[in-house]
């Protein structure tokens, strides 16, 4: 746990620091992708890295996502630790075969003789007024794929520590960066040492557990502050694997749960949360786990996205509908 900075930094800056520190700490680390070199990335997350570490370690690739991930796999087979960027969520889809058929499977295929310490950074989510294909939330595709770790930070300091941990992890990590939080600041120090697979209770509460991740964490905290019941807010951070212990302990205490995300509800990440929390906490639940999510539609155009995105009203509304009046007292509750 080495503290690094305590003045407020944005998430974009925290990620930039994480990459810089990883490049400085381990010369097997490479950073590449579209516009990550000279330009410093369209979100400036790689700003200054090419100048500092040189074209050989931080560079622009041709415009080909399968090529970026496929060559990263080959580099990892030869002992390097590539950190690649998919410029926007929807533009990771061309790399889908390389990710699902190789990145996720090569370690298992070789019985662990080949590790694939590759990090695929994907800016994701909406709320930034992006035109079509620039606001997707594709975490469910990857979280459903065994062999991948899927991680997403909700704060700048987590962005730093989780990205450092992802780069040090021997497993491939899909690292989802919530675009609309790139400019969010916090002042907690940038430290290493956060495990890659644990959720965190962001706010303690006793009546209901509100489960969020990435872009919806601030929305969840706002809702908790505005609610007239006591809301515990959990930031999952790790989508795969899922931290059953932290989440179920909370739900068993509160007896109610709401999960929030931007992606469509149908087979969205909240489906797994609802299913597994219910499996493990059934007799503690006073109401079904509620899902507050994007609708089952293609991501809307910028002027309509406000209707699609989970907001405080919809979260409070879901909390209110958790059958507070007709509480069922269960024998073993």
């Amino acid at each position: 746990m080495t503290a690094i900075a305590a003045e407020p930094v944005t998430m974009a800056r925290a990620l930039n620091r994480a990459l810089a520190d990883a490049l400085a700490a381990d010369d097997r680390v490479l950073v590449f992708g579209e516009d990550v070199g000279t330009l410093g990335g369209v979100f400036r997350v790689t700003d200054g890295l090419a100048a500092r570490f040189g074209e050989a370690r931080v560079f622009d690739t041709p415009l080909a996502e399968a090529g970026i991930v496929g060559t990263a796999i080959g580099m990892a087979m030869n002992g390097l630790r590539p950190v690649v960027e998919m410029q926007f969520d929807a533009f990771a889809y061309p790399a889908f075969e390389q990710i699902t058929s190789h990145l996720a499977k090569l370690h298992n295929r070789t019985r662990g003789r080949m590790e694939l310490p590759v990090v695929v950074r994907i800016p994701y989510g909406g709320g930034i007024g992006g035109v079509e294909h620039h606001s997707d939330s594709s975490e469910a595709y990857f979280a459903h794929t065994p062999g991948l770790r899927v991680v997403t930070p909700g704060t700048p300091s987590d962005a730093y520590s989780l990205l450092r941990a992802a780069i040090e992890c021997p497993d491939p990590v899909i690292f989802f960066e919530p675009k609309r939080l790139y400019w969010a600041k916090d002042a907690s120090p940038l430290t290493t040492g956060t495990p890659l697979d644990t959720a965190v209770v962001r706010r303690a509460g006793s009546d209901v557990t509100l489960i969020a991740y990435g872009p919806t964490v601030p929305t969840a905290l706002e809702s908790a502050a505005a609610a007239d019941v006591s809301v515990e807010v959990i930031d999952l951070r790790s989508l795969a694997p899922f931290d059953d212990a932290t989440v179920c302990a909370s739900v068993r205490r509160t007896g109610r749960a709401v999960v929030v995300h931007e992606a469509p509800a149908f087979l969205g990440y909240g489906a797994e949360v609802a299913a597994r929390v219910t499996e493990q906490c059934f007799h503690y639940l006073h109401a079904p786990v509620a899902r507050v999510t994007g609708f089952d539609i293609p991501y809307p155009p910028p002027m309509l996205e406000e209707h699609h995105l989970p907001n405080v009203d919809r979260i409070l509304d879901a909390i209110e509908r958790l059958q507070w009046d007709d509480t069922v007292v269960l024998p073993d509750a």
Partner: protein
Amino acid sequence: MSTVATPRQKLSRNLLPDAEPLQLLTASGEAVPGGHLPDDRVLLDVYRRMVIGRRFDAQATALTKQGRLAVYPSSHGQEACEVAAVAALQAQDWLFPTYRDCVALVARGVDPVETLSLLRGDWHLGYDPHAHHVAPQCTPLATNTLHAVGLARAAAIKGEDTVALVFVGDGATSEGDTHEALNFAALWRAPVVFLVQNNGYAISVPLSKQSAAPSLAHKGVGYGVTSMLIDGNDPAMVYTATQSALEAARAGEGPTLIEARTYRIEAHTNADDATRYRSEDEVLSWLARDPIDRLDRYLSARSVLDTGARARIVEEAEAFAASLRDRMNADPTLDPAALFQHVYATPTPALRRQAAKVTQ
């Protein structure tokens, strides 16, 4: 909007493109000796639409500053490709544009406000693709090349006299889809023309980091696709090459790959800072090869264009821009219910329930 006819231009159809870009008009607007230029009426029409197109482009950039557009990718400097290629299309032909090609849409006759819906953000598409045979502007790079090949193949199967013209950027040529599209097109001898607008950059990434080939036109060779390398700032050349490729496709001679060398004068979009990756001198050197000036000089020298005619065209462009500005200053009517209506031909019960939450 059908195009003015010209004598069929037959260019040589080789696998290996010429080493130097073909030209009909020099940078200073003189006819290249021995070149067979399109006739004056065609070029005057192209000139007029280029002037209107550039004015539209400037207006669109201005609209981003007023917050009326979410973002705008300018094609300033690429008007020869945007307009002359479209001018060579017949009414029944189809255009497959990218996000960069708003000016091409306007040249094709798509309403400018409908053209800008995508970038304003009231919907992903503002126009009816069938109205002018213009596919939705495509953002996932190179994916539109396959759609163009499929539509062209379907046209051939149905016995239609239709050719598909697809625009691709230099960067997009690196995507696997471009490879698959060229291969399918060649095998099917599909009536499709690939126009690569090589404007030197993919956002910040220069061509030198995109390809190590002698030219992008060389990419046709590996598929057996006839390739041409042309000066993309020469409106006469772009028109002639495109028309020749379209006619060859119509005649059943199969696809053509055209690399048009041009330049993106503005940043990638209004949100981009091009000073981070290219020099002012480079931009200036390309301003000296401006496609509109070039055609202006040529047409003036032939006194097809005089002060009066030029003034009338500028006036038309100003009126076009003014009406666009006014119409864009009105807030679009937004319909959240539409989000649920078109996901499927008939909304599912679940979508009707979800729609109710939003529209109640």
